[in-house]
């Protein structure tokens, strides 16, 4: 595999007008708790082209992981998908039956969960776990073909062939994480969702894992959704950034627009809270606390913490408006220009 420096690889050239490989429409998820109904995902829509990388950021509880689980149809009771569609290619995942969805997982859409490295079976060899996954989807393939596929996948995440015969405890955290990525790409999915793939790893390993994801994404041409709250990682890795707040998308912009000219006040606060080498000793957090999903503030959910709050924000919820530039912002400040 030839190593291109990251800087030369981006941005992924949008030379041809492509039809989006992933379209999420009005996705809505609620959790029914004893204290009432919590709306974890409220009317979320976006689309993604093949080869595009989307970063999804927000505080804990903003609905990032719920989004991933809903797309995989892995929401468990008391949670429920209330409505919406998730198209991968032409197939609506929400409309599939259980067997169809089982087949779609891993082959159409793969999910690398948070702390994935702890999800490997400790008493099975890495190779056996990978082969299990392939056999569940391709029962008619010969053993040697399946094994070949697994070994190729391990090689594409830069792991030595010997890893195939190893147990998870023989691997370091970064290696386990790369095994999980290898499993994720076994069947060349069109969409890969990685939920905080590096949150437990140190910086060097983190960079290595992210570069691995970048490489395999290039090889299989999949769209990638990277979920996380590390804006630095987003700046290094993604093409587009989606900011979530209290279960709603508040802004979707290209990574350059997001870092140079964020529109939504919450996105602005996120960007200005970032540390850099020029503002030593300045700690600028976002005042206030993330709202409870059981009691989402009226109007715009961000209004109690917003620096540019207006009267209308308290009563009316801002619509998600596509700006001329193709950016999407949900804020009354930009109503007129929408």
């Amino acid at each position, binding site marked *: 595999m030839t*190593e291109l*420096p*990251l*800087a030369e690889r981006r941005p992924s050239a949008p030379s041809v007008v492509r039809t989006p490989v992933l379209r999420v429409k009005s996705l809505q998820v609620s959790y029914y708790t004893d204290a009432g109904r919590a709306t974890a995902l409220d009317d979320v829509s976006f689309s993604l082209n093949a080869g595009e990388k989307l970063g999804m950021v927000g*505080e*804990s*509880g903003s609905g990032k992981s719920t989004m991933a689980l809903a797309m995989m149809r892995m929401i468990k009771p008391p949670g429920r998908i209330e409505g919406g569609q998730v198209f991968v290619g032409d197939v609506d995942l929400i409309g599939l039956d259980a067997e169809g969805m089982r087949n779609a997982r891993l082959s159409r859409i793969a999910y690398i969960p948070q702390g994935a490295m702890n999800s490997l079976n400790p008493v099975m060899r890495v190779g056996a776990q990978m082969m299990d996954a392939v056999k569940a989807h391709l029962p008619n393939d010969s053993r040697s073909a399946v094994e070949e596929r697994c070994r190729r996948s391990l090689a594409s995440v830069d792991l030595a062939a010997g890893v195939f015969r190893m147990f998870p405890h023989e691997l*370091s*955290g*970064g*290696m386990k994480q790369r095994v999980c990525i290898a499993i994720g790409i076994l069947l060349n999915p069109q969409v890969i969702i990685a939920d905080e793939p590096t949150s437990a790893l*140190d*910086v*060097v*390993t*983190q*960079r*290595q894992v*992210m*570069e691995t994801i970048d490489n395999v994404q290039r090889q299989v041409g999949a769209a990638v959704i990277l979920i996380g*709250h*590390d*804006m*630095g*990682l*987003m*700046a*290094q*890795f993604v093409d587009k950034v989606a900011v979530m707040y209290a279960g709603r998308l508040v802004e979707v912009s290209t*990574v*350059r627009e997001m*870092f*140079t000219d964020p529109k939504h006040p919450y996105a602005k*606060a*996120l*960007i200005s*809270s*970032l*540390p*850099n*080498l020029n503002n*030593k*000793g*300045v*700690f*600028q*957090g*976002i005042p206030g*606390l*993330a709202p409870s999903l059981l009691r989402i503030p009226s109007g715009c959910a961000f209004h109690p913490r917003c620096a540019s709050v207006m009267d209308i924000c308290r009563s009316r919820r801002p619509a998600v408006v596509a700006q001329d530039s193709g950016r999407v912002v949900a804020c009354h400040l930009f109503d007129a220009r929408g």
Partner: protein
Amino acid sequence: MSLANLLELRNISKVYTRGLINASSTTALEGFSLTLKEEEPTILTVAGESGSGKTTLAMLLLGFITPTSGQIIYRGKDITTLSGDEKMTFRREVQAVFQDPFAVFNPFYKVDHLLTVPINRFKLARSRAEARDKIEEALTAVGLRPEDIQGRFPHQLSGGQRQRINVARALLLKPRLLIADEPVSMVDASLRANILETLSKLQRDHGVSIIYITHDLTTAFHISKSIVVLYRGAVMEAGDVDTVIKSPQHPYTRLLIDSIPWPNLDQRWGERPIKARETGASSVGCRFHSRCPSAMEICEQRPPLFRLSERQAASCHLYRDNDKLDGERLTEVLPA
């Protein structure tokens, strides 16, 4: 002299041995020396990847484990030989904030428990009212509203709130030294700033010295004055935090700083391919040499610390023309 030292680590090493017949040993920390002055409260960062020995150092400082060799002197006394009363004082004056704000709470108790136990244990208050005042004062100092916190169970609070309660608990005891082991690595970016600010206020306004243990050099840069970079139990580079982060000299520090995902589109990850940690540690010579892009023949020998400037030293043969710095005098390059 030694009276004025808050903490003195004299050449401490920690070796973990396992197995009885085919004993194998891992050196988690080797020949580490450090002095913190009593009248100059500072924030010192100890940085490194997992396996660098930074948590071992925290455990040693807190007296949870004893060093294999060397001494830890706290205010003139070796901490392994403290008497009962002295040990209580040590336990009160040296406090810790750990990485995981979720794991340190007992889910069956209200969070008040975490704050009332140390008050009772160390007899910090004469009456309930005084105890309540102290708790409220500590909670307010870390930017929490006492009425939001008291009477709640841990699961009702966010990670950031819980982590700040841990800082409040430490503050309650009026410590002289705080060991903060990755206090913000599990907290949202927006709350990270609040906790770091709380820590730096603790140093500035309450005169607490802080040893900040982390792998995150961005936060280290913002909060600390000096930094020690560890790799596999040995000091790679040390000095003033501005100098070390803005102009790292040791190849390992450069690798670490190259790998920081800066939230800046024009500051990309380094273009040099990196070698993973699993390429193994060198048992002889420089610990980093199997991963080092500038490895030379001489790296088969263990490099001493070389003094690069008044406020920077690196353990690397690239700088063999500079003066050697005895490991025990490491503190000389660390500004207070």
